[in-house]
């Protein structure tokens, strides 16, 4: 930056040094300011504007759940001993007394039964973790459906996706720590999945477990990952994520007075800070309420890990559910033909565990898809502009439909992880549940896509209808000549603006490259572009609108605005700075 070359006068330096604060608070503020430069921070952030909408709060929930989970987790570490050395349990829980178990399990029990508030903190930690991943997921879904990932926020979307993956890792490593039968079998499944990886899988498993499963080493290793490596990465990426949010300024929904060039909302001081700060306590309160009233992970039920026992209803925490579910719906045989096969190799043959590897495909596709989506969409639509105004989901029908299809796909895999509970609780055959889920795996996303797209287009048409002819007022009038018609209430200009200010471009067709050739890739792009844009409901045009007004013979609020054609300046009515 050129700032370094700026020249300052001696008077400017002296001004800063000689300033004498008058009040006590002022003295403290000045002391801090002259050492850390608080002035610029206050000037930058003190009145920074944040748009206010309830769907913008999920990210905050995720942040707060993370903080709560870190704090409660730190509390747990004071008692928990992640050792696989054995001990004979002698704590308060009678049905396990005298059994041989690892220190990890014994200290988890100690935390639950013999440390006051330990059970509460354990449950708070676990509910907090579930909420952390949940909030991240919903936040990501919100960002997707409103198009908030578009330029210039693509990289922050990637940071967010990485945070989600790290959240899954944090959750799974924590789930495994108490070393009871449930989490032990979870690790065993991970071991089985690792071993299925061609060439290196077996060795990855050896290195993770320090030998053959389960060995002596895995819990301390997972502990190091769980309390140090993953949280540190999470912390760094959260900082990057927030820095980028501040740098880009928050997106906002389209609406009157909102443009691509401004941000409309409440200033940090005092309203936004109070709301966001108060919301931290609300999130903590809700999680405390859950932790105080609903039992979570009753690890004393499961007993110390032993490779022999297993329990009906062996499931992972919800966010790992889709990994488990997709493993369940994959068949091992088609008819009598095994899908698993031995690849003939010169050294005797290698096994390909198809029934484990194939389910990794949808998981990889979904995860990778999340990471590359911003670029994929830009490539298809050719839209390389900056977007600070969000899309109402209905106004991006193809994206919304595709997103819903992917959500449904995820839901099918996720739901499959509780196939056994669906069977018992709805009195169904376990096998039938799996057959239906297999069908839903393929058909669900397609149906969801078609249905959602139709719903979006219908909602857009409804918007057009309202914009041109107004809301149905629910009043039926009889005209003098006996004709019935319903009264319509025309929207005011503010509502109208929200209904009409969107884009619905037509497909653009293939474009030749610099050499004037249309490449095969470009043809694919053009085809996708057509699918993307061909079903569209155009927003009401000025001509249509003026005609409709004339037709109604009324003078609606929007008319003036439509005719005056005044440009909105960024500082418009509610001016502050």
């Amino acid at each position, binding site marked *: 930056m050129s700032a370094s070359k700026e020249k300052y006068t001696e008077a400017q330096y002296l001004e800063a040094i000689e300033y004498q604060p008058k009040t006590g608070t002022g003295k403290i503020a000045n002391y801090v300011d002259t050492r850390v430069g608080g002035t610029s921070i206050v000037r930058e952030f003190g009145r920074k504007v944040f748009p206010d909408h309830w769907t913008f709060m999920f990210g905050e929930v995720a942040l707060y759940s993370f903080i709560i989970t870190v704090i409660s987790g730190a509390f747990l570490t004071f008692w928990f001993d992640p050792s696989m050395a054995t001990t004979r349990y002698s704590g308060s829980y009678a049905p396990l007394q005298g059994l041989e178990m690892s220190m990890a399990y014994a200290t988890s029990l100690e935390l639950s039964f013999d440390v006051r508030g330990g059970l509460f903190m354990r449950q708070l930690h676990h509910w907090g973790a579930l909420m952390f991943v*949940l909030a991240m997921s919903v936040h990501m879904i919100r960002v997707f459906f409103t198009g908030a990932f578009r330029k210039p926020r693509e990289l922050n979307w990637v940071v967010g996706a990485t945070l989600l993956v790290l959240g899954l890792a944090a959750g799974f490593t924590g789930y495994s720590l108490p070393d009871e039968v449930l989490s032990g079998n979870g690790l065993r499944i991970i071991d089985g999945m690792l071993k299925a990886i061609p060439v290196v899988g077996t060795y990855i498993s050896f290195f993770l477990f320090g030998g053959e499963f389960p060995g002596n080493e895995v819990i301390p290793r997972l502990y190091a990952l769980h309390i140090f490596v993953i949280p540190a990465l999470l912390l760094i990426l959260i900082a990057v994520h927030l820095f980028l949010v501040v740098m880009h300024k928050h997106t906002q929904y389209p609406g009157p007075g909102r443009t691509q060039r401004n941000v409309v909302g409440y200033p940090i001081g005092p309203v936004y800070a109070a709301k966001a700060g108060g919301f931290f306590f609300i999130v903590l309160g809700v999680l405390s309420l859950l932790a105080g009233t609903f039992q979570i992970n009753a690890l004393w039920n499961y007993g110390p890990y032993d490779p022999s*026992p297993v329990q*009906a209803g062996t499931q992972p925490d919800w966010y790992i559910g889709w990994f488990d579910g997709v493993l369940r719906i994959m068949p091992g045989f088609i008819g009598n033909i095994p899908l698993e096969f031995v690849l003939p190799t010169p050294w005797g043959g290698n096994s390909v565990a198809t029934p484990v590897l194939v389910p990794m495909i949808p998981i990889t596709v979904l995860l990778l898809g999340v990471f590359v989506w911003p670029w994929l969409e830009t490539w298809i639509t050719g839209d390389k502009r900056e977007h600070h105004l969000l899309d109402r989901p209905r106004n991006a029908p193809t994206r919304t439909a595709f997103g819903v299809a992917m959500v449904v796909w995820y839901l099918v895999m996720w739901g499959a992880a509780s196939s056994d509970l669906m069977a018992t609780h709805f009195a169904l055959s376990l096998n039938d549940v799996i057959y239906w889920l297999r069908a839903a795996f393929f058909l669900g996303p397609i149906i969801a896509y078609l249905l959602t797209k139709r719903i979006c287009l219908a909602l857009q048409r409804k918007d057009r209808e309202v914009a041109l002819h107004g809301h149905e007022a629910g009043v039926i009038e009889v005209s003098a000549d006996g004709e019935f018609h319903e009264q319509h209430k025309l929207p005011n200009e503010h509502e109208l603006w929200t209904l009409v200010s969107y884009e619905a471009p037509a497909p653009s067709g293939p474009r030749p490259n610099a050499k004037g050739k249309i490449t095969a890739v470009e043809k694919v792009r053009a085809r996708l572009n057509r699918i993307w844009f061909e079903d569209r409901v155009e927003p009401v045009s000025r001509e249509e609108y003026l005609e409709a007004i004339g037709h109604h013979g009324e003078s609606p609020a929007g008319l003036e605005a439509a005719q005056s054609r005044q440009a909105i300046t960024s500082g418009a009515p509610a001016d502050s700075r």
Partner: protein
Amino acid sequence: MKALSQKRRHPFAFVALLLLGLLVTGGLYAAATTVNQAQASNTPDGFSSEQVDEGERLFVANCASCHGMNAEGSDAGPSLVGVGAASVEFQVGTGRMPMQMSGPQAQQKPPQFNEEQTTQLAAYVASLGAGPGIPDDEWLDVDEGDPARGGELFRINCAMCHNAAGAGGALTEGKYAPSLHGVDEVHIYTAMTTGPQNMPVFNDANIPPEDKRDIIAFLKTYEQQGSPGGFSLGFLGPVSEGLLIWTLGLALLIGSMVWLTSRSS
């Protein structure tokens, strides 16, 4: 029920009824003749011959249509020779028999027979051939059992079907392992010795009576201790927890978000 009432109006309903009547009459006659045989042959330990007689009468009236007049079994129901008094105690005592409808497995329902009648039926079935008997009270006394040892045995032998907390679980093709909460000691015991439905048999050579008592002690301890962390969510583990956070947890937060961002009036 609807199907039944439709069938009742079927033209052949009368014929079927007639046949049924004939069968029952004939059955009663046959029963009367076999009573003496039973009396003469063997009265099982712990039962009186009157109980056997009464039991046989009940059997013929209520069970013979599926299990055969002499409990030799038919297409509709297995032979009961050698299943022992324990099977009757379990199947009839928990209301699973007589079966209400056919299905993947017999459903639990309020028992149709009182304790006395159940004992009589048990006496009759026990008289047909040797089988697991009704356990002594000694083996049902949970105060004598060791819940910790029972828990270990439970996790190895039972939890894979019945869930680690005894909440039950799914089996193949519509069958399921029922919840063990609130099941009587004697029924837990007899289920182990007889292996009802598709449950494997855990005879005394496999799990000795002392160990069975430990398992019962564990289950009863578990039942009595409740859930210290709050509502148990059905003891179903991560699925119900995930469901709760996605419903109640999310709803509470969305509620507060909407309130927080809405304008005050």
